[in-house]
């Protein structure tokens, strides 16, 4: 590990989960605070200004994206990593579009979680296999013309074939290092593909991205 351990705030409504994560991550990152709902979390984060906020997608007082929206305009340097047990795609996509730098499931191993926190702290994007699947799904069909807002920018509406390949491998459980080896590119390039996907995900004007999630629920 290089540099000081990232300062982390945990936001989760399950006390048991918070203490578990804190005990496991304690040695690898610096957990500076905990909050269990939207309003206390906003106050705590504004006060502590941590490097990374580990944010549960589901919070009683409005969901994880409310926290991000309240913080990001004033303190863009605070980075968010979304964490969830439920994996409902519409919630995950909403949190990412609100500005989270990544999404991991609660079943993730401690070592991987610590690594994800460090990478988010360094400004990288962290995609779990499940998020990669959601994103592939959301960008799968080309949008019908009427589905785009007037400020349609084609750059953000499609994934390149390379980005798709990277996401497929992430969805298959490959690490960035393994992807780099598999595709004969550098780990840095993999990282930049993932960041570019994250940007597209946040800037895309496709209605589909949010509507798709609702449709999936019906099927």
């Amino acid at each position, binding site marked *: 590990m290089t540099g000081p351990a990232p300062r982390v705030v945990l936001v989760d409504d399950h006390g048991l989960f918070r203490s578990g994560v804190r005990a496991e991550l304690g040695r690898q990152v610096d957990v500076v605070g905990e909050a269990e709902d939207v309003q206390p979390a906003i106050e705590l984060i504004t006060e502590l200004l941590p490097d990374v906020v580990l944010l549960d997608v589901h919070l009683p007082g409005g969901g994880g994206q409310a926290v991000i929206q309240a913080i990001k305009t004033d303190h863009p340097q605070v980075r968010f990593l979304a964490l969830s047990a439920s994996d409902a795609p519409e919630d995950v996509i909403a949190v990412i579009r609100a500005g989270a730098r990544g999404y991991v499931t609660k079943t993730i191993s401690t070592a991987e979680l610590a690594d994800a926190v460090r990478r988010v702290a360094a400004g990288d994007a962290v995609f779990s296999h499940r998020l990669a*699947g959601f994103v592939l799904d959301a960008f*799968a069909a080309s949008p019908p013309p009427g589905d785009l807002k007037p400020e349609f920018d084609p750059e953000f509406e499609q994934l390149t074939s390379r980005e798709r390949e990277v996401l*497929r491998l992430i969805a298959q*459980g490959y690490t960035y290092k393994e992807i780099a080896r598999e595709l004969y590119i550098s780990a840095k390039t993999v990282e930049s593909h993932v960041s570019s996907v994250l940007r597209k995900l946040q800037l895309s004007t496709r209605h589909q991205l949010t509507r798709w999630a609702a449709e999936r629920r019906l*099927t």
Partner: protein
Amino acid sequence: MEHPAPWHRGPSWLRNRDGHGGPLRRDPADRLGGGVAAGVATWRGFNVTTIRIAFVLATLISTGYFVPAYVVAWLLIPAAGEDASIASKARSDTSGIRLAVGLASLLVFVLVVAGALNDGWFSGWAWPQVVSLAGLVLIWRNSSPQEQATLRHLVEPLGAAAGAGARDEGQNRRRRSILRLAVAGVLVIGGAGWLFSARESLDLLQPLGGVVLVIAGIVLLLGPWWLRIARDLVLERQARVRAEERADIAAQVHDSVLQTLALIQRRADDPQKVIQLARLQERELRSWLFEGRAPNETDDLTVGAGVRQIQQDVESRYGVPVEAVTVGECELDDNLTALLAAAREATVNAAKWSGASVISLFAEVEPTEVSLVVRDRGTGFDPAAVPADRKGLAESVHGRMTRRGGTVTVTSAPGEGTKVSLKMPRAAAQPHPVSRAR
């Protein structure tokens, strides 16, 4: 390490770009002659009967020249599931080639003599058959046993006319068939005589009577033989269907019973676990035997639901977490059910043997196909060193996929984990590669 389906070899000019994805292959499962029509039908997605009618029309229009073309196609196009065409085998069969040339030249001689005596309609049709005859001789000598049986049917009436066909039949039968042949001969000759003598006559009824007599003679001569061919074809098809069912049952038993027995042996020191496994297996077997439900049959009708089902079952039975991701969604058809069964088998294999702490299952539904990747970071193996009698991957995964036109790619090396990539065309996107007899 690549495991391409067996029919992905062969002359490249026979490969097709728009049809069912595979190259053109004769279809021995649905043949009347060489299976060329059935092969073309499944290749291009037509009805077999349409193709057959087209072939007959082509024969009539080309005054017989289509027949040798058919025979040449029979020679050059490999049968489905085989690598080599008959022609490639025949190339090394020198005595067969000599026989073919000999018979063909004999026919040429006969035709020359016939042409000198009576130049007409008959020899126009017979000339192209010189090539057909030579081709059929080569096929006869070099094709698989089933195809030889078909050819025996084709030449049987000639043998019967010579009295040889009745050899292995009873005395009584033999006398009857001789009688039948005699009556038929009289009818044909009489009818033909009538026909020819009536040529100059202006009476229209007379040649008609001759035609009726000739047809009656031909029916009497060849009718029983046609019936037998039809019956044999039906029997042959039934036998094939039975063989396929047996293969399916074997795969099924392997997936459930043998897997459970292997588990029981590994857990022999834990009586509670053994009882639990035995109960589970008993339930499965009962529901399969008495309720007709395959042990792995999925209740839900979509790919995503099927993948979730595999995830749940493998996690609960083997205690290995499965991380499943499905991109896109579609309803299951027969092909995709087979794909899921193969994926289940690959996942179970990974859970049992790889020793990996987690297994990834990734399914992606695309417009024309569904791909599924089962990956683990376990011990891996050398695919080339797997003994042939280890049925798991070979029959359950490979067989299931290739029987329905899918492909399997296994990438593995000792110490580097295993990745099984399965691809299956969607039935809605294109016709079933093999149309079975109903």
